[in-house]
Protein backbone atom coordinates (compact mmCIF):
# COMPACT_ATOMS: atom_id res chain seq x y z
CA UNK A 1 0.00 0.00 0.00
CA UNK A 2 1.23 3.54 -0.68
CA UNK A 3 2.26 6.10 1.92
CA UNK A 4 0.49 9.44 2.37
CA UNK A 5 2.37 12.56 3.47
CA UNK A 6 0.59 15.70 4.61
CA UNK A 7 2.45 18.60 2.99
CA UNK A 8 3.24 21.72 5.02
CA UNK A 9 2.77 24.87 2.95
CA UNK A 10 1.25 28.35 2.96
CA UNK A 11 -0.68 27.81 -0.30
CA UNK A 12 1.87 29.80 -2.32
CA UNK A 13 4.97 27.84 -1.33
CA UNK A 14 5.80 24.40 -0.04
CA UNK A 15 7.71 24.44 3.27
CA UNK A 16 11.16 22.81 3.07
CA UNK A 17 10.19 20.48 5.97
CA UNK A 18 8.02 18.44 3.59
CA UNK A 19 11.03 17.43 1.48
CA UNK A 20 12.61 15.89 4.59
CA UNK A 21 9.46 13.88 5.34
CA UNK A 22 9.59 12.52 1.78
CA UNK A 23 13.08 11.13 2.45
CA UNK A 24 11.83 9.39 5.60
CA UNK A 25 8.91 7.92 3.64
CA UNK A 26 11.25 6.70 0.90
CA UNK A 27 12.93 4.44 3.47
CA UNK A 28 9.63 2.56 3.86
CA UNK A 29 9.85 1.38 0.26
CA UNK A 30 6.36 2.07 -1.10
CA UNK A 31 4.77 4.63 -3.43
CA UNK A 32 4.58 8.09 -1.91
CA UNK A 33 1.55 10.35 -2.30
CA UNK A 34 1.66 13.95 -1.07
CA UNK A 35 -1.52 15.65 0.10
CA UNK A 36 -1.67 19.40 -0.38
CA UNK A 37 -4.76 20.68 1.44
CA UNK A 38 -5.22 24.40 1.05
CA UNK A 39 -7.01 27.20 -0.74
CA UNK A 40 -5.70 28.31 -4.12
CA UNK A 41 -2.85 25.97 -3.32
CA UNK A 42 -1.97 24.96 -6.89
CA UNK A 43 1.46 26.69 -6.64
CA UNK A 44 2.34 24.63 -3.55
CA UNK A 45 1.07 21.48 -5.28
CA UNK A 46 3.28 22.16 -8.31
CA UNK A 47 6.33 22.45 -6.04
CA UNK A 48 5.30 19.25 -4.24
CA UNK A 49 5.09 17.45 -7.60
CA UNK A 50 8.77 18.21 -8.24
CA UNK A 51 10.04 16.35 -5.16
CA UNK A 52 11.98 13.26 -6.18
CA UNK A 53 10.30 10.03 -5.10
CA UNK A 54 6.75 11.40 -5.04
CA UNK A 55 4.43 9.29 -7.23
CA UNK A 56 1.37 11.51 -7.02
CA UNK A 57 0.22 14.78 -5.50
CA UNK A 58 -3.33 15.02 -4.20
CA UNK A 59 -4.66 18.57 -4.16
CA UNK A 60 -7.66 19.32 -1.96
CA UNK A 61 -8.52 22.93 -2.70
CA UNK A 62 -11.19 24.38 -0.44
CA UNK A 63 -11.73 27.44 1.76
CA UNK A 64 -11.84 25.15 4.82
CA UNK A 65 -8.17 24.22 4.32
CA UNK A 66 -6.78 27.73 3.80
CA UNK A 67 -5.18 27.98 7.26
CA UNK A 68 -4.52 24.28 7.87
CA UNK A 69 -6.91 24.18 10.85
CA UNK A 70 -6.60 20.80 12.56
CA UNK A 71 -10.28 19.88 12.57
CA UNK A 72 -11.06 20.03 8.80
CA UNK A 73 -7.60 18.78 7.70
CA UNK A 74 -7.83 15.80 10.08
CA UNK A 75 -11.31 14.98 8.74
CA UNK A 76 -9.89 14.96 5.21
CA UNK A 77 -6.96 12.72 6.18
CA UNK A 78 -9.28 10.28 7.95
CA UNK A 79 -11.32 9.95 4.75
CA UNK A 80 -8.16 9.19 2.72
CA UNK A 81 -6.30 7.01 5.27
CA UNK A 82 -7.95 3.62 4.48
CA UNK A 83 -5.95 3.42 1.24
CA UNK A 84 -2.59 3.85 2.96
CA UNK A 85 -0.17 1.88 5.16
CA UNK A 86 1.35 5.03 6.69
CA UNK A 87 0.32 8.66 7.11
CA UNK A 88 3.33 10.93 7.66
CA UNK A 89 3.98 14.61 8.21
CA UNK A 90 7.01 16.66 9.13
CA UNK A 91 7.01 17.45 12.87
CA UNK A 92 6.21 21.12 12.27
CA UNK A 93 3.55 23.06 14.14
CA UNK A 94 1.04 21.86 11.50
CA UNK A 95 2.05 18.19 11.59
CA UNK A 96 2.14 18.12 15.38
CA UNK A 97 -1.30 19.71 15.55
CA UNK A 98 -3.09 17.60 12.94
CA UNK A 99 -1.68 14.05 13.07
CA UNK A 100 -2.57 13.11 16.67
CA UNK A 101 -6.14 14.10 15.86
CA UNK A 102 -6.08 11.78 12.84
CA UNK A 103 -4.63 8.92 14.91
CA UNK A 104 -7.32 9.18 17.58
CA UNK A 105 -10.10 9.34 14.98
CA UNK A 106 -8.70 6.14 13.45
CA UNK A 107 -8.21 4.59 16.93
CA UNK A 108 -4.50 3.98 16.33
CA UNK A 109 -1.42 4.97 18.30
CA UNK A 110 0.87 7.65 16.95
CA UNK A 111 4.64 7.81 16.71
CA UNK A 112 5.96 11.35 17.16
CA UNK A 113 9.14 12.91 15.88
CA UNK A 114 10.98 9.90 14.45
CA UNK A 115 14.73 10.19 13.83
CA UNK A 116 15.21 6.85 12.04
CA UNK A 117 13.17 4.24 10.18
CA UNK A 118 14.13 0.76 11.44
CA UNK A 119 11.51 -1.13 9.43
CA UNK A 120 7.99 -0.51 8.12
CA UNK A 121 6.59 -0.85 11.65
CA UNK A 122 9.55 0.19 13.85
CA UNK A 123 11.02 3.62 14.35
CA UNK A 124 13.55 5.40 16.53
CA UNK A 125 12.46 8.50 18.37
CA UNK A 126 14.09 10.69 21.02
CA UNK A 127 12.59 10.79 24.52
CA UNK A 128 13.55 12.82 27.60
CA UNK A 129 14.66 15.76 25.45
CA UNK A 130 16.91 13.55 23.36
CA UNK A 131 18.74 12.08 26.36
CA UNK A 132 17.51 8.62 25.36
CA UNK A 133 16.48 7.09 22.04
CA UNK A 134 13.52 4.70 22.08
CA UNK A 135 12.84 2.14 19.38
CA UNK A 136 9.08 1.65 19.17
CA UNK A 137 7.02 -0.80 17.19
CA UNK A 138 3.43 -0.36 16.05
CA UNK A 139 0.99 -3.19 15.33
CA UNK A 140 -1.73 -0.85 14.05
CA UNK A 141 -3.08 -1.18 10.51
CA UNK A 142 -2.17 2.42 9.70
CA UNK A 143 0.98 3.96 11.13
CA UNK A 144 0.64 7.66 11.95
CA UNK A 145 4.09 9.23 12.15
CA UNK A 146 5.66 12.68 12.40
CA UNK A 147 9.22 13.11 11.18
CA UNK A 148 12.02 15.13 12.76
CA UNK A 149 13.25 17.01 9.73
CA UNK A 150 16.85 17.39 10.90
CA UNK A 151 17.26 13.59 10.93
CA UNK A 152 16.56 13.15 7.22
CA UNK A 153 18.05 14.91 4.19
CA UNK A 154 15.71 16.91 1.96
CA UNK A 155 14.48 15.11 -1.17
CA UNK A 156 15.75 16.80 -4.33
CA UNK A 157 13.43 18.83 -6.54
CA UNK A 158 14.13 16.71 -9.60
CA UNK A 159 10.87 14.79 -9.94
CA UNK A 160 7.71 15.36 -11.89
CA UNK A 161 4.62 13.73 -10.42
CA UNK A 162 1.05 14.25 -11.63
CA UNK A 163 -1.29 16.43 -9.56
CA UNK A 164 -4.75 15.00 -8.98
CA UNK A 165 -7.67 16.80 -7.38
CA UNK A 166 -9.45 15.27 -4.43
CA UNK A 167 -12.78 16.46 -3.08
CA UNK A 168 -13.06 18.26 0.24
CA UNK A 169 -14.96 16.52 3.02
CA UNK A 170 -17.52 18.12 5.36
CA UNK A 171 -15.88 20.70 7.67
CA UNK A 172 -16.64 19.88 11.33
CA UNK A 173 -16.96 23.69 11.79
CA UNK A 174 -15.51 23.67 15.30
CA UNK A 175 -12.88 26.33 14.76
CA UNK A 176 -12.16 29.39 12.71
CA UNK A 177 -9.03 31.33 11.84
CA UNK A 178 -8.85 34.84 13.31
CA UNK A 179 -5.40 36.23 12.59
CA UNK A 180 -1.70 35.48 12.27
CA UNK A 181 1.32 37.52 13.28
CA UNK A 182 4.25 36.08 11.39
CA UNK A 183 7.77 37.27 12.12
CA UNK A 184 9.14 39.07 9.12
CA UNK A 185 12.78 38.49 8.44
CA UNK A 186 15.10 38.73 5.48
CA UNK A 187 17.24 36.03 7.02
CA UNK A 188 16.82 32.32 6.31
CA UNK A 189 14.37 30.31 8.38
CA UNK A 190 15.90 28.75 11.52
CA UNK A 191 15.15 25.12 10.75
CA UNK A 192 16.48 25.21 7.20
CA UNK A 193 19.42 27.63 7.55
CA UNK A 194 22.95 26.40 6.77
CA UNK A 195 24.37 28.51 9.60
CA UNK A 196 22.61 29.45 12.85
CA UNK A 197 23.93 31.96 15.37
CA UNK A 198 22.12 31.98 18.71
CA UNK A 199 22.26 34.16 21.78
CA UNK A 200 21.51 33.32 25.39
CA UNK A 201 21.05 35.09 28.66
CA UNK A 202 24.61 36.39 28.35
CA UNK A 203 23.42 38.78 25.64
CA UNK A 204 21.91 40.81 28.53
CA UNK A 205 19.24 42.53 26.42
CA UNK A 206 17.24 42.28 23.22
CA UNK A 207 19.05 45.33 21.84
CA UNK A 208 22.36 43.47 22.02
CA UNK A 209 21.04 40.90 19.56
CA UNK A 210 22.04 43.34 16.81
CA UNK A 211 25.60 42.16 17.47
CA UNK A 212 24.50 38.68 16.36
CA UNK A 213 22.37 39.99 13.51
CA UNK A 214 25.29 41.88 11.99
CA UNK A 215 27.33 38.67 11.84
CA UNK A 216 24.34 36.65 10.65
CA UNK A 217 23.85 39.04 7.75
CA UNK A 218 27.46 38.65 6.66
CA UNK A 219 27.27 34.85 6.84
CA UNK A 220 23.73 34.43 5.50
CA UNK A 221 22.82 32.86 8.83
CA UNK A 222 19.59 32.60 10.82
CA UNK A 223 19.41 34.03 14.35
CA UNK A 224 18.21 31.88 17.24
CA UNK A 225 18.06 32.08 21.01
CA UNK A 226 18.06 29.94 24.10
CA UNK A 227 14.95 29.55 26.21
CA UNK A 228 16.58 31.73 28.87
CA UNK A 229 16.84 34.60 26.37
CA UNK A 230 13.21 34.11 25.32
CA UNK A 231 12.01 33.90 28.93
CA UNK A 232 13.92 37.09 29.70
CA UNK A 233 11.97 38.79 26.90
CA UNK A 234 15.02 39.56 24.72
CA UNK A 235 13.50 38.02 21.57
CA UNK A 236 10.21 36.39 20.48
CA UNK A 237 9.50 32.72 21.13
CA UNK A 238 9.89 31.69 17.50
CA UNK A 239 13.66 32.32 17.92
CA UNK A 240 13.83 29.57 20.51
CA UNK A 241 16.12 26.61 19.84
CA UNK A 242 15.69 23.66 22.19
CA UNK A 243 13.46 20.89 23.43
CA UNK A 244 10.58 23.31 23.81
CA UNK A 245 11.43 25.35 20.72
CA UNK A 246 12.84 24.49 17.33
CA UNK A 247 15.15 21.58 16.60
CA UNK A 248 17.96 22.61 14.27
CA UNK A 249 20.94 20.80 12.75
CA UNK A 250 22.80 23.30 10.57
CA UNK A 251 26.33 22.88 9.21
CA UNK A 252 27.50 25.52 11.67
CA UNK A 253 25.89 26.45 14.99
CA UNK A 254 27.35 29.33 16.94
CA UNK A 255 26.18 29.57 20.58
CA UNK A 256 26.92 32.93 22.15
CA UNK A 257 26.41 33.58 25.84
CA UNK A 258 24.55 30.27 26.15
CA UNK A 259 25.44 28.07 29.12
CA UNK A 260 24.23 24.86 27.47
CA UNK A 261 21.26 23.61 29.50
CA UNK A 262 20.06 20.11 28.56
CA UNK A 263 16.93 21.61 27.09
CA UNK A 264 18.98 23.80 24.71
CA UNK A 265 21.38 21.01 23.73
CA UNK A 266 18.35 18.90 22.76
CA UNK A 267 17.63 21.42 20.04
CA UNK A 268 21.07 21.79 18.46
CA UNK A 269 23.40 18.92 19.37
CA UNK A 270 23.05 17.30 15.94
CA UNK A 271 24.61 20.33 14.24
CA UNK A 272 27.65 19.44 12.15
CA UNK A 273 30.04 21.97 13.71
CA UNK A 274 29.33 23.73 17.01
CA UNK A 275 31.09 26.88 18.18
CA UNK A 276 30.62 28.22 21.71
CA UNK A 277 31.57 31.69 22.89
CA UNK A 278 31.16 32.15 26.63
CA UNK A 279 33.11 33.90 29.35
CA UNK A 280 32.50 31.04 31.80
CA UNK A 281 35.00 28.34 30.86
CA UNK A 282 33.07 25.80 32.97
CA UNK A 283 29.85 26.28 30.92
CA UNK A 284 28.44 22.88 29.80
CA UNK A 285 28.14 24.16 26.23
CA UNK A 286 31.92 23.63 25.87
CA UNK A 287 31.40 19.88 26.36
CA UNK A 288 29.61 19.65 23.02
CA UNK A 289 31.44 22.42 21.14
CA UNK A 290 33.98 21.61 18.42
CA UNK A 291 35.53 25.03 18.91
CA UNK A 292 35.24 26.90 22.18
CA UNK A 293 36.27 30.48 22.79
CA UNK A 294 36.38 31.66 26.39
CA UNK A 295 35.85 35.38 25.99
CA UNK A 296 33.61 38.33 26.77
CA UNK A 297 31.07 38.23 23.98
CA UNK A 298 30.88 42.03 23.82
CA UNK A 299 34.54 42.04 22.76
CA UNK A 300 34.46 38.86 20.68
CA UNK A 301 31.37 39.60 18.58
CA UNK A 302 32.60 42.89 17.01
CA UNK A 303 35.91 41.16 16.24
CA UNK A 304 34.08 38.23 14.70
CA UNK A 305 31.99 40.56 12.58
CA UNK A 306 35.17 42.15 11.21
CA UNK A 307 36.87 38.81 10.61
CA UNK A 308 34.22 36.93 8.65
Amino acid at each position, binding site marked *: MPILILADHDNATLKPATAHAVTAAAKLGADIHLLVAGRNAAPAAEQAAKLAGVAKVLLADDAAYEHAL*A*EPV*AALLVSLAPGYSHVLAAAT*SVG*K*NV*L*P*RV*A*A*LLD*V*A*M*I*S*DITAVVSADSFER*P*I*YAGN*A*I*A*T*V*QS*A*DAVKIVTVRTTAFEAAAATGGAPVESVAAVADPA*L*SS*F*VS*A*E*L*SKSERPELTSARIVISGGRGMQSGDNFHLLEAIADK*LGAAVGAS*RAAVDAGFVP*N*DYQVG*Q*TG*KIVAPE*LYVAVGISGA*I*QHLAGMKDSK*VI*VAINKDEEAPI*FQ*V*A*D*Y*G*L*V*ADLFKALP*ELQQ*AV
Partner: protein
Amino acid sequence: MKILCAVKRVVDYNVKIRVKTDQSGVETSNVKFSMNPFDEIAVEEAVRLKEAGAATEIVVVSIGPAQAQETLRTALAMGADRAILVQTDVETQPLAVAKVLKALVEKEAPGMVILGKQAIDDDCNQTGQMLAALLGWGQGTFASKVVAADGKVAVTREIDGGLETVELKLPAVVTADLRLNEPRYASLPNIMKAKKKPLETITPDALGVDVTPRLKTVKVAEPAKRQAGIKVPDVATLVDKLKNEARVI
Protein backbone atom coordinates in the same frame (compact mmCIF):
# COMPACT_ATOMS: atom_id res chain seq x y z
CA MET B 1 -17.93 26.95 33.53
CA LYS B 2 -16.13 23.96 34.95
CA ILE B 3 -12.54 23.36 33.78
CA LEU B 4 -10.86 19.98 33.74
CA CYS B 5 -7.06 19.92 33.89
CA ALA B 6 -4.92 16.87 33.27
CA VAL B 7 -1.51 16.58 34.94
CA LYS B 8 1.23 13.98 34.58
CA ARG B 9 3.80 12.89 37.13
CA VAL B 10 7.17 12.87 35.37
CA VAL B 11 10.86 12.68 36.23
CA ASP B 12 11.77 16.19 37.36
CA TYR B 13 13.18 18.36 34.59
CA ASN B 14 16.40 18.95 36.54
CA VAL B 15 17.22 15.25 36.79
CA LYS B 16 19.88 13.97 34.44
CA ILE B 17 18.27 10.73 33.33
CA ARG B 18 20.11 7.42 32.96
CA VAL B 19 19.27 4.70 30.50
CA LYS B 20 19.01 1.24 32.13
CA THR B 21 21.85 -1.08 31.19
CA ASP B 22 19.42 -3.72 29.88
CA GLN B 23 17.97 -1.06 27.51
CA SER B 24 14.45 -1.66 28.86
CA GLY B 25 13.89 2.00 29.68
CA VAL B 26 15.06 4.89 31.80
CA GLU B 27 16.05 4.52 35.47
CA THR B 28 13.15 5.84 37.55
CA SER B 29 13.93 4.47 41.01
CA ASN B 30 15.37 6.96 43.51
CA VAL B 31 14.88 9.95 41.22
CA LYS B 32 12.83 13.04 41.93
CA PHE B 33 9.44 13.29 40.28
CA SER B 34 7.32 16.38 39.85
CA MET B 35 4.44 17.73 37.80
CA ASN B 36 5.09 17.96 34.07
CA PRO B 37 6.04 21.66 33.64
CA PHE B 38 3.59 22.21 30.78
CA ASP B 39 0.78 20.80 32.94
CA GLU B 40 1.74 23.22 35.69
CA ILE B 41 1.17 26.02 33.19
CA ALA B 42 -2.22 24.46 32.33
CA VAL B 43 -3.28 24.40 35.99
CA GLU B 44 -2.11 27.98 36.45
CA GLU B 45 -4.20 29.08 33.47
CA ALA B 46 -7.29 27.36 34.87
CA VAL B 47 -6.76 29.05 38.24
CA ARG B 48 -6.38 32.43 36.53
CA LEU B 49 -9.58 31.87 34.55
CA LYS B 50 -11.34 31.09 37.82
CA GLU B 51 -9.87 34.15 39.52
CA ALA B 52 -11.07 36.27 36.59
CA GLY B 53 -14.58 34.89 36.97
CA ALA B 54 -14.55 32.93 33.70
CA ALA B 55 -14.51 29.55 35.48
CA THR B 56 -16.37 28.26 38.52
CA GLU B 57 -14.69 24.98 39.40
CA ILE B 58 -11.39 23.28 38.54
CA VAL B 59 -11.16 19.50 38.53
CA VAL B 60 -7.65 18.12 38.17
CA VAL B 61 -7.00 14.60 36.89
CA SER B 62 -3.92 12.40 36.78
CA ILE B 63 -3.56 8.95 35.29
CA GLY B 64 -0.73 6.96 36.82
CA PRO B 65 0.58 5.23 39.95
CA ALA B 66 -0.51 5.90 43.54
CA GLN B 67 2.32 8.44 43.91
CA ALA B 68 0.56 10.69 41.38
CA GLN B 69 -1.56 11.75 44.37
CA GLU B 70 1.35 14.04 45.29
CA THR B 71 1.18 15.64 41.86
CA LEU B 72 -2.56 16.17 42.31
CA ARG B 73 -2.01 17.72 45.76
CA THR B 74 0.39 20.18 44.15
CA ALA B 75 -2.34 21.17 41.68
CA LEU B 76 -4.84 21.51 44.55
CA ALA B 77 -2.37 23.75 46.40
CA MET B 78 -2.11 25.93 43.29
CA GLY B 79 -5.89 26.44 43.38
CA ALA B 80 -7.71 23.46 41.83
CA ASP B 81 -10.86 22.51 43.75
CA ARG B 82 -10.85 18.71 43.65
CA ALA B 83 -8.83 15.88 42.19
CA ILE B 84 -9.33 12.50 40.55
CA LEU B 85 -6.60 9.88 40.34
CA VAL B 86 -7.15 7.21 37.74
CA GLN B 87 -4.76 4.70 39.22
CA THR B 88 -2.75 2.33 37.06
CA ASP B 89 0.80 1.04 37.07
CA VAL B 90 0.71 0.38 33.33
CA GLU B 91 2.84 2.66 31.12
CA THR B 92 0.36 5.34 30.04
CA GLN B 93 0.41 6.08 26.32
CA PRO B 94 -1.37 9.14 24.89
CA LEU B 95 -4.27 7.34 23.17
CA ALA B 96 -5.15 5.48 26.39
CA VAL B 97 -4.88 8.68 28.44
CA ALA B 98 -7.13 10.48 25.96
CA LYS B 99 -9.72 7.70 26.30
CA VAL B 100 -9.63 7.89 30.11
CA LEU B 101 -10.01 11.67 29.95
CA LYS B 102 -12.90 11.33 27.51
CA ALA B 103 -14.72 9.04 29.97
CA LEU B 104 -14.17 11.60 32.75
CA VAL B 105 -15.30 14.49 30.55
CA GLU B 106 -18.53 12.62 29.90
CA LYS B 107 -19.05 12.31 33.68
CA GLU B 108 -17.93 15.81 34.65
CA ALA B 109 -19.17 17.83 31.64
CA PRO B 110 -16.54 20.59 31.78
CA GLY B 111 -16.71 23.59 29.42
CA MET B 112 -12.98 23.39 28.72
CA VAL B 113 -10.13 20.94 29.17
CA ILE B 114 -6.64 22.43 29.60
CA LEU B 115 -3.49 20.32 29.60
CA GLY B 116 0.17 20.71 28.81
CA LYS B 117 1.21 20.52 25.15
CA GLN B 118 3.57 17.64 25.86
CA ALA B 119 5.02 15.62 28.69
CA ILE B 120 8.77 15.98 29.13
CA ASP B 121 9.31 12.24 29.58
CA ASP B 122 7.93 10.65 26.38
CA ASP B 123 7.87 14.00 24.49
CA CYS B 124 4.82 12.81 22.50
CA ASN B 125 2.74 15.99 22.15
CA GLN B 126 -0.42 14.02 21.33
CA THR B 127 -2.86 13.73 24.25
CA GLY B 128 -4.73 17.03 23.90
CA GLN B 129 -5.25 16.64 20.16
CA MET B 130 -6.39 13.03 20.65
CA LEU B 131 -8.85 14.00 23.39
CA ALA B 132 -10.33 16.75 21.20
CA ALA B 133 -10.73 14.23 18.37
CA LEU B 134 -12.45 11.62 20.55
CA LEU B 135 -14.85 14.23 21.95
CA GLY B 136 -15.52 15.83 18.57
CA TRP B 137 -14.35 19.17 20.02
CA GLY B 138 -12.14 21.90 18.62
CA GLN B 139 -8.51 22.12 19.72
CA GLY B 140 -6.32 25.11 20.55
CA THR B 141 -2.84 23.65 20.81
CA PHE B 142 0.45 25.31 21.87
CA ALA B 143 -1.47 28.19 23.48
CA SER B 144 0.26 31.40 24.51
CA LYS B 145 -3.00 33.28 25.25
CA VAL B 146 -6.52 32.09 26.11
CA VAL B 147 -9.56 34.38 26.17
CA ALA B 148 -12.91 32.74 26.95
CA ALA B 149 -16.20 34.63 26.47
CA ASP B 150 -19.73 34.10 25.11
CA GLY B 151 -19.49 30.36 24.55
CA LYS B 152 -16.27 30.71 22.60
CA VAL B 153 -12.58 30.76 23.29
CA ALA B 154 -9.91 32.64 21.35
CA VAL B 155 -6.59 30.82 21.53
CA THR B 156 -3.34 32.41 20.37
CA ARG B 157 -1.01 29.63 19.28
CA GLU B 158 2.77 29.39 18.97
CA ILE B 159 3.38 28.28 15.39
CA ASP B 160 6.61 27.88 13.42
CA GLY B 161 6.67 31.34 11.88
CA GLY B 162 5.17 33.31 14.77
CA LEU B 163 1.69 33.41 16.30
CA GLU B 164 -1.78 32.45 15.08
CA THR B 165 -5.13 33.09 16.73
CA VAL B 166 -8.04 30.70 16.27
CA GLU B 167 -11.54 30.84 17.68
CA LEU B 168 -13.12 27.65 18.99
CA LYS B 169 -16.66 26.79 20.00
CA LEU B 170 -16.87 25.73 23.63
CA PRO B 171 -16.46 23.11 24.92
CA ALA B 172 -12.93 22.80 23.58
CA VAL B 173 -9.49 21.44 24.43
CA VAL B 174 -6.56 23.82 25.00
CA THR B 175 -2.92 22.73 25.34
CA ALA B 176 -0.49 25.04 27.12
CA ASP B 177 2.80 26.26 25.70
CA LEU B 178 5.60 27.88 27.68
CA ARG B 179 4.69 31.53 27.40
CA LEU B 180 1.03 31.15 28.42
CA ASN B 181 1.88 32.15 32.00
CA GLU B 182 4.34 31.70 34.82
CA PRO B 183 2.97 29.20 37.32
CA ARG B 184 2.77 30.37 40.92
CA TYR B 185 4.45 28.69 43.85
CA ALA B 186 1.90 27.26 46.25
CA SER B 187 1.98 29.04 49.60
CA LEU B 188 2.30 27.04 52.81
CA PRO B 189 -1.30 27.79 53.93
CA ASN B 190 -2.54 26.66 50.51
CA ILE B 191 -0.46 23.47 50.73
CA MET B 192 -2.10 22.78 54.12
CA LYS B 193 -5.56 23.53 52.72
CA ALA B 194 -4.90 21.27 49.72
CA LYS B 195 -4.56 18.30 52.07
CA LYS B 196 -8.23 18.66 52.97
CA LYS B 197 -9.53 19.04 49.43
CA PRO B 198 -11.32 15.99 47.97
CA LEU B 199 -9.23 13.46 46.05
CA GLU B 200 -11.10 10.54 44.52
CA THR B 201 -9.31 7.42 43.31
CA ILE B 202 -10.78 5.21 40.57
CA THR B 203 -9.44 2.69 38.06
CA PRO B 204 -9.44 2.69 34.26
CA ASP B 205 -11.60 -0.46 34.45
CA ALA B 206 -14.27 1.39 36.39
CA LEU B 207 -14.39 3.87 33.51
CA GLY B 208 -14.53 1.03 30.98
CA VAL B 209 -11.23 2.01 29.35
CA ASP B 210 -8.52 -0.42 28.27
CA VAL B 211 -5.18 1.28 28.92
CA THR B 212 -2.95 -1.52 27.58
CA PRO B 213 -0.07 0.13 25.66
CA ARG B 214 -0.51 0.00 21.90
CA LEU B 215 3.07 0.78 20.97
CA LYS B 216 5.75 -1.69 21.99
CA THR B 217 9.03 -0.22 23.22
CA VAL B 218 11.64 -2.51 21.69
CA LYS B 219 14.58 -0.83 23.40
CA VAL B 220 15.79 2.41 24.90
CA ALA B 221 19.39 3.38 24.18
CA GLU B 222 21.83 6.16 24.96
CA PRO B 223 22.10 8.78 22.22
CA ALA B 224 25.37 9.11 20.33
CA LYS B 225 27.69 11.25 22.43
CA ARG B 226 29.41 14.32 21.06
CA GLN B 227 33.05 14.73 21.90
CA ALA B 228 34.21 18.05 23.24
CA GLY B 229 36.51 19.75 20.76
CA ILE B 230 39.25 22.26 21.34
CA LYS B 231 39.47 25.69 22.91
CA VAL B 232 40.76 28.44 20.64
CA PRO B 233 42.68 31.41 22.09
CA ASP B 234 41.10 34.21 20.05
CA VAL B 235 38.64 35.20 17.35
CA ALA B 236 41.27 35.13 14.60
CA THR B 237 42.09 31.48 15.33
CA LEU B 238 38.40 30.63 15.48
CA VAL B 239 37.72 32.15 12.06
CA ASP B 240 40.79 30.43 10.63
CA LYS B 241 39.63 27.03 11.95
CA LEU B 242 36.12 27.55 10.59
CA LYS B 243 37.46 28.52 7.18
CA ASN B 244 40.33 26.10 6.74
CA GLU B 245 39.70 23.15 9.06
CA ALA B 246 35.91 22.77 9.31
CA ARG B 247 35.32 24.59 6.00
CA VAL B 248 31.90 25.82 7.04
CA ILE B 249 32.31 29.52 6.30
